[in-house]
């Protein structure tokens, strides 16, 4: 496996100087390139000028709404977003995921945990060369999924998916008609250690449905209550 730190730029959005120093020291020593924004104002600008590979976003910033910032980042970029928050509630987690976050880390965290989450998110959002898929193109109703080119179209019009959304769709579409459990999807898409984060799958399936399914049309992703999901069979 290649070193995840190589040529990786992390944008840290955090106002507490101690935590900035903590994250920066640990990332720098492992070869990551770190850019810090202590307030919300500069984030969108830095996103453009620094082109980070991943954003660590604190939700509680002075003079800024962390959720809104997350939404704005997602609107502009497919960059991996890990929300770092002192708020541990399920609601905040689901809201952050809904606003486009890829992962949610609750304070206090250990450095191992932080590094593991960064690595997992990077693997997903910046995937290495994948083995040639057996079925390079999957067609379901109006939707065409080009697995090799990582492109999705509906009626010929491109649909923009974030890397995490695409990874989930690929997993579902390459196992067409098969029931995939929550923990299977979590392990395959998010990585080891995520098996119990059921709401991640739920939020992301909802996001996929919103982007791909037509109201009243044939469902693309079928829910198997309390078990998992399956992609519409051929």
């Amino acid at each position: 496996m290649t070193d995840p730190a190589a040529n990786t730029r992390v944008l840290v959005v955090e106002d507490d100087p101690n935590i900035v120093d903590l994250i920066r020291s640990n990332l720098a020593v492992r070869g990551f390139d770190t850019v810090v924004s202590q307030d919300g104002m500069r984030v969108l600008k830095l996103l453009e000028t620094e082109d980070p590979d991943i954003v660590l976003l604190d939700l509680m910033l002075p003079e800024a709404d962390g959720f809104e910032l997350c939404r704005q980042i997602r609107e502009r970029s497919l960059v991996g977003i890990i929300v770092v928050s002192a708020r541990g509630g399920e609601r905040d987690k689901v809201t952050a995921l809904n606003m486009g976050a890829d992962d949610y880390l609750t304070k206090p965290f250990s450095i191992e945990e932080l590094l593991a989450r960064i690595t997992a998110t990077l693997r997903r959002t910046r995937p290495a060369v994948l083995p040639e898929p057996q079925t390079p193109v999957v067609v379901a109703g109006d939707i065409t999924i080009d697995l090799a080119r990582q492109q999705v179209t509906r009626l010929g019009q491109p649909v923009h998916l974030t890397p995490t959304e695409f990874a989930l769709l690929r997993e579902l579409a390459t196992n067409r008609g098969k029931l995939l459990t929550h923990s299977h999807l979590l392990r395959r898409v998010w990585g080891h250690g995520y098996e119990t984060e059921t709401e991640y799958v739920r939020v992301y399936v909802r996001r996929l449905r919103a982007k791909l399914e037509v109201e009243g049309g044939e469902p693309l992703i079928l829910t198997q209550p309390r078990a998992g999901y399956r992609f519409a069979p051929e």
Partner: protein
Amino acid sequence: MVAVSELAQAVAAPLLSVSGLGVTFGSVRALDGVNLTVRPGQLVALAGENGAGKTTLVRCIAGDITPTQGEIFLSGRRVGTDPAAVARQGVAVVWQDLALCENLDVAANVLLGRETRRMIFSDSRFHAAAASLLDSLGIPIQNTARRVSSLSGGQRQLVAVARAMGSKPRLLALDEPTASLGVMEAAQVEELIAGLREKGTTILLACHDIDQMFRLADRILVLRQGRIVADLDPLSTHPDDVVALLSGQPVDSTARRQLTRLHGLADRLVSADPSSSLSLILSALGAALGTEQLCMHLVRDQRLICAASLGFAPGQLASWAQLPFGTTGGPVGLAARSEKPVIEANVRASTAWIPFGDLARMAGVASSWSVPVAGPGGLSGVITVFRPRTGLPQRQELQLVTLYAGYAASTVERDRLLAQATARNRVLETIREMLENLAGPIPVTDGLVIAVQALRHGLQADEVALVTRPEGKVPRWRAFAGPPGGDPASPALRAAADSVLAEAAGDGATRQLTSSQGRRVRVVPFTAANGPAVLLASWKQPSAGKAAQEENDLMEDAAHSLRLALDREEAGLAHQEAAALRRSGELQRDFLSRLSHELRTPLTAIRGYASSLMQPDVTWDRPSQDRFLGRIAAESARLGRLVDDLLDFSTIESGLMRLQPDWCDLPLVLQAAVACLPPDDTAAVSVECAAGLPVVWADHDRLEQVFVNLINNAVGHNPPGTRVVVTAETVTPLQVAISVTDDGTGIPDDLATAPFEAGPRRRTRTGGAGLGLSIAHGIVRAHGGRIELRRLARGSRFRVVLPVESAGQHAEAAEHRLTDVAALVTGGAAQGGNHRD
């Protein structure tokens, strides 16, 4: 949301009904499955962001676009497919871009297409017709010969509306009528719309301005991405919720919505007319309990008739419309027969609910409580609360229902009374005047005064007064009406009030008192919600003669109405209390969430740095190791301080704070406090103590804590370079004052309103839990002193005033002064276990 079945839901058939409407432009779905109905006389607002489909919907209704799917009916008839046909059916539309004829004058535009032959041949008739139309709509455009192109945007909009109204439409659709207007002009157009609504015009208003919708609309439909996402009642909705719905952002505003609703209902309750108060009481109860489903049965002809309900679809309660007393009447019948609350913790396991299984299933009822409403003449009804989960109600909840059952009984009684009053002419007139005053939009207190004046007039008495004695308090003269000239109440009246209120509880019956002062006094003692009360009247003439019975009746009826007014006042207070309680709950939640953040921040640093040092794959250089360890130590100390503050705060909050007082030298206390500051900050602080400052009887350590907090606060909340001056002086021989003054940026508004309350506030540079001021306040109070905040032109000043000795220690303290040694010894003995060891 309130359904009053007594009104038989005599709702007219919809004027406009749209079902399954869909419009597709190429691949864009502009409208998608839109269903809506507009009833005659309603003003329905369409809210939506740009592109949400508002204009498209209006264009469909106007016949300007043929929908891809769905149907539109006007009074049950399908609307035509072209604008002219739709206009003939009675739909008039004012478009955003108006479509006025620029080169024609006002009259021509207003009457365009409707010129009669008579008009065409007479210019003056033509203009008169236009002017009369404008005038009937209250549009202030005098000169109908002005060219439209010379009018302002607002005037053009008024002309366009006038033109639409000229055809006497059954439905007026307005597309963003004020979107491009200035404030004044928008207000003019809004006034016109409000006027049309008053006259009963049915209006569909596509609109951007959320406040405007709340001012004008009976209903608000929210469109998002071509779909109707909400159908809202402005009275029970908060504007923020509409904003959230428009943008599709999720909001959690249940608590705030309930608060708003409670406020709204409390307001409406005060100004309610009698016939609607039952459902108002019911919805107020619903709001107070946080319950969505309630109903109320009234006793009529030995049966229980469902008079009001909340939260049920029409027809859902059909099986409960009329219930007999006893077992066959289910829980309602049982509660009515036993006159005791009937609690069903689980309706599935309840025998009383067996006949009503369908109702329980349809309405999702899991538990119910039926509480009898006891009126003065026996049982008057039953209130039933439905819950979607099983289980018993809490004690306060049940008390709340009983409380509201009392209000309901008063209301039923008031309605009955009104009916009886029709028999007596003069009495009726006075009573009605009084009730109107009490039911009007004025506060109860003012209403009482007006009512008492009316009563004095009706009784032809010299004086009338209402005196109450709230539980455990002194009598309070709530209202008094005397002869012109403003004389105070006569001694006879005062004596009567005192003697009646000293007696047992009032029964609401009149009695006549003879007075030695040559006045005749009638009194009606009664019991209001908050204690005994008495209505008094006095006459100089010795005998009432034939009018005696009338006087009796009038005073008893009046007393009854006054009791209801007093009860309503009490209910208003209860509402305010409930609202305040909810607000304090919200603040507490905010506070806890902030506190959790403040605790997690140092923990994150400690855990992070510690785990960094333990990483097997990295060897940190010496400076990094030192820095990490230093940070861990500093953050642990910060965490320790936070925990200390929390413990102090909870000690103060729970009233368990114990002082260990001794004679303290204030300059020493202040010096010690300054010494606790970080070395960098000490330079900014200067201490000035007046000469001859007495020693104070206080807990040295706690006092030091107060000044550490105040000085820290002054330094921490202000920009670097701020000077802090601490002064101590004697204010009276028994009081000293210590001021902490800074010349910084001052206290923010949100903090200045309640500086000593713990609660969510700005994050501090010092990183505290925001408890410093609360703790200082608690300690100073425990010393019998007080603490005040003053905002200065530059900076702010906290002033602590302390007693030299606190009350109760005076005699003892005098002895202490004899000799230092004696003071220490006796002080120790007197303070016993509290003494510092």
